[in-house]
């Protein structure tokens, strides 16, 4: 738990409200959530001396742009950063494709906080 206190989790999502509640939830468990709203920002962040433990990608925010989401997955995979994909229940097909790019889990929104935190503890520890 002490090791996880400094861990950064990349929040690859665009909706400010989602980022806010994610950051609040992560902060209460000792994580830092860093918002990443697009490919360029992800690449810039990964170039920094930062060792993100985990990525949480809301695929719904990038749903119509397959190229962009493909790049995001590739970047995370190349850096060996495990990532979890969040998807709207009606677009789970889109999320399921992410398994081919190394996603550890695809979760339908809304997610139970406790379940997400349990998963994070397992992956980011």
């Amino acid at each position, binding site marked *: 738990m002490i090791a996880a206190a400094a861990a950064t989790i990349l929040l690859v999502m665009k*909706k400010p409200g989602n980022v806010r*509640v994610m950051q609040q939830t992560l902060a209460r468990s000792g994580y830092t959530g860093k918002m990443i709203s697009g490919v360029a920002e992800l690449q810039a962040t990964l170039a920094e001396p930062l060792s993100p433990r985990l990525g949480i990608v809301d695929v719904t925010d990038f749903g119509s742009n397959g190229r962009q989401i493909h790049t995001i997955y590739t970047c995370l995979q190349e850096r060996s950063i495990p990532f979890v994909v969040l998807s709207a229940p009606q677009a789970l097909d889109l999320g399921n494709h992410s398994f081919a790019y190394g996603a550890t889990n695809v979760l339908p929104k809304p*997610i139970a906080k406790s379940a997400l935190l349990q998963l994070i503890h397992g992956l980011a520890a």
Partner: protein
Amino acid sequence: MERLCTGVDGLDEILHGGLIPQRSYLIRGGPGRGKTTLGLHFLTAVDDSESALFIGFQEPEAQLHSNAASLGIDVSAVTFLSLAPDAQFFTEQQSYDVFAAADVEQQPLVEAIIQAVEHHHPTRVFVDSLSQLRFLSTDIFQYRKQVLSFLRYLTQRGATVLFSSESSRELPDDDLQFIADGVINLEADVSGPAIRISKMRGSSFRFGMHHMRVAGGGLKVFPRMIPASSRRAELQLQCWGTGVKKIDELLHGGLAASTVSLITGPSGIGKSTLAALFVAEAARRGERAAIFLFEEEIAFFLRRAKNLHLPLEEPFADGRISIEQVEPMRYLVDEFTMRVREQVEEADVKMVVLDSVTGFEIALGGEAVRERLHAFAKGLSRLGVTVLLINEIEAMTGEFRISEKSISYLSDNVIFLRYMEIDGMLKKAIGVLKKRLSGFDNRLHTFEIGPGAFKIGAPIHGLHGVLGGTPMPQDES
């Protein structure tokens, strides 16, 4: 039993003194019915030893202050905990879908409430509205449990809690009604907005719909008049005459005090004039009387009285007689009856004239007010007031009926006036049909109204069918 005032006098009267402290009460009603206003009244009724907390999920504090000010309610002693979303929630796109609302909102909300309660130790809490918690619960069981626990938390800390709900067909609030110790419904019937108590654990209350109004000064509740179970017997010994010897002889002295009398007859026959005779005589004896005109203007009424040499102007001027012209839609029924009751009690009015029953019904809300009229007339009579109801019959002649409104049952005395056609002439007849407390002259008499007099003629002899309006000589029957 100790009672806590609600801040609304009329509601306290309906609740037989107010709310039982440290319990929770549900205020139900559609949008704009006055739920928040009632909550504000409740909170602002604190005395120096109390503190009040408003927990709001909908309106921001500034808006609540503004609304209260516009109603003349001083909320300076109230602490507001506004849990309503601010404008940034929209402008900064703060809505979310990664977590369920219950997962995100419940904890900070509970923490904020606990903090406010522990800090202010409120004795009065208003939650507006508890329906909001429904959206933060995962299922109905959790919601019910959460509400019960929340209310218990507040009441165990010494607070009396009022909470509102927003019920609809899709989201009924039956569960909240079961949970609450009392249920106050803000409703509306055809005669206007009304308040109704449907549940009050550990206390009796006045049943039925009671009209209410939200206006300057806030919420006003007008408890419907319930006649006292007994009347003051000594008042029945008094008798009210007209000062016209022959009319008083018909009535064997006059109308007993604190009774209800129906003066019934077709349009223009002299019902109001006859009532005015009783009023003028009461004023002459130094007593106070009140006339409520639902159809005629005061000026016309007084001019007519003057033409008939009825001395009403002077007692009207010095206050022995009050005359009010009641315009349609001005009052709610219970508002009107409360106003009359207050006038009776404050000015010691001994006689009340309602002119007319039809006007009362039309001006105050239609057919639905009949039961109110009953309670009104009986209620006044048991306060010692002599009540004269003027009742117009539509049919000028034909089958005789005391009233087309089925109200004769509530009258102790009935005086009827009839037109009759004799030899191509329209004549008038007067008779007494009923007088509960004494005998009366059961003969019909002709009468005339003219300047200076209400002249009673000789008893009608040798005719039958007078009540039908077309009398025939006895020997032709």
